[in-house]
């Protein structure tokens, strides 16, 4: 501690130093304890900092289990469009639509959340207007990002159940609108079941979510990965991946959706 103290006084003028040294010499001669204050200050500061860090950590962890609300907020109903399960995909919009847009999403993936924020409305509108067949492929590649791990698989599986229960659109939208943060707590089975019930699903849905669909999601993810890797020049698979009429799309080019929807007018 005395080392730190020495450093601090570095800005002082030499003249003051000499005066103080004189004074110190007097007190020292009287028997003042050397460095007592340094010791006291050092201990006090260490204790105070420990308390500050402790309180800071407590503040950060206090809300962890409840960092997400108790119930998943239910997303508002949007435009109406047909929904049908097809293998491991969920087909929305008319099968006869001139454009097919395949969307590969992981419910834990932040960029997918951003993608949904940016394009969800127009995608559903296109599906509703019959301009596009929008096919959702729930995949699970980010199981490690949630606490406990596995939310990606759980949510993807629950989406199959939601499709069977005829509540896919709002179930899907709710999960993206209230996406758990990376490294945060994922929604639990009970919360997903509750969301389904809020949307009018019955016991079949509840049982379906309880059973899970780990094998199905794993297979679907593997198939999707193989497909996307084959389409991409760099042979990588990430989410979100978007395929328009069989061609992989660079969604960082913001005009991709306009191009996809206008292409069919020609």
């Amino acid at each position, binding site marked *: 501690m*005395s080392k*730190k*103290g*020495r*450093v*601090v*006084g*570095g*800005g*002082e003028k030499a003249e003051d*130093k000499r005066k*103080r*040294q004189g*004074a*110190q*010499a007097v*007190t*020292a*001669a*009287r*028997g*003042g*304890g*050397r*460095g*007592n*204050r*340094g010791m006291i*200050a050092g201990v006090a*500061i260490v204790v*105070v*900092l420990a308390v*500050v*860090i402790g*309180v*800071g*950590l407590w*503040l*950060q*962890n206090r*809300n*962890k289990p409840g*960092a997400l609300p108790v119930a998943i907020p239910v997303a508002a109903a949007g435009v109406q469009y047909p929904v049908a399960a097809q293998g491991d995909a969920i087909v929305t919009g008319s099968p006869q639509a001139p454009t097919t847009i395949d969307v590969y999403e992981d419910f834990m993936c*932040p960029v997918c959340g*951003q993608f949904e924020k940016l394009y969800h409305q127009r995608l559903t509108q296109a599906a509703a207007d019959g301009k596009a067949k929008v096919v959702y492929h729930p995949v699970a590649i980010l199981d490690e*990002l949630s606490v406990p791990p596995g939310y990606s698989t759980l949510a993807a599986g629950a989406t199959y159940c939601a499709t069977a229960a005829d509540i896919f659109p709002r179930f899907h939208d709710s999960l993206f609108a209230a996406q758990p*943060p*990376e*490294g*945060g707590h994922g929604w639990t089975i009970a919360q997903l079941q509750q969301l389904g019930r809020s949307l009018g699903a019955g016991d079949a849905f509840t049982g379906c979510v309880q059973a899970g669909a780990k094998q199905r999601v794993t297979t679907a993810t593997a198939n999707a990965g193989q497909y996307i890797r084959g389409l991409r020049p760099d042979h990588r698979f990430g989410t979100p991946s978007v395929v328009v009429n069989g061609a992989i799309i660079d969604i960082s080019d913001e005009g991709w959706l306009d191009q996809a929807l206008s292409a069919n007018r020609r």
Partner: protein
Amino acid sequence: MARLSRSAVDGLGTLVRLGLAAVFLVSGALKAVDPAQTRIAVRAYELLPPDLVGPVATALPLVELVLGTLLLVGAITRWVALASGVLLVVLMTAVAQAWARGLSIDCGCFGGGGAVAKGDTRYPQELARDVGTLLLALWLVVRPRTVLSVDRWLRADPGTADPGAADPPDAPWRTAGNPVK
């Protein structure tokens, strides 16, 4: 005369120190109470690999609270001010790169943060505020003398080593003093 004005400057420096302390304590506390939001804010800069977002979001508020506390009590002021300045420069760099890359984010400097609409960014204001805070830190780096501080209390320690002096000239006094005790 010189003495008087110096104590006045000490007083001003104390205000600077307490002001800087308040900035860090408030920003650290606001971040600490909403860890999920802080993680979003850190991630929004798109600078860190995903594995580092969590640790940085956890550590940043703690670092701010520690700096704020040390400034509040006035301990090792110069070094804490220097560390504060470095932190501020790092944060300003992060904000500036977000601006330059055209990201639409709130800096999350005092809680909040994350993506915002294109027209809702406030980069100039955020940077101006950081520059102001940086000036406070620089003052204390250049002139760490303040009143009501642990540093001053230590300097006034009757028996301690002269904080500013090199060891050798000091040593005789100490050895002379100690045997008495």
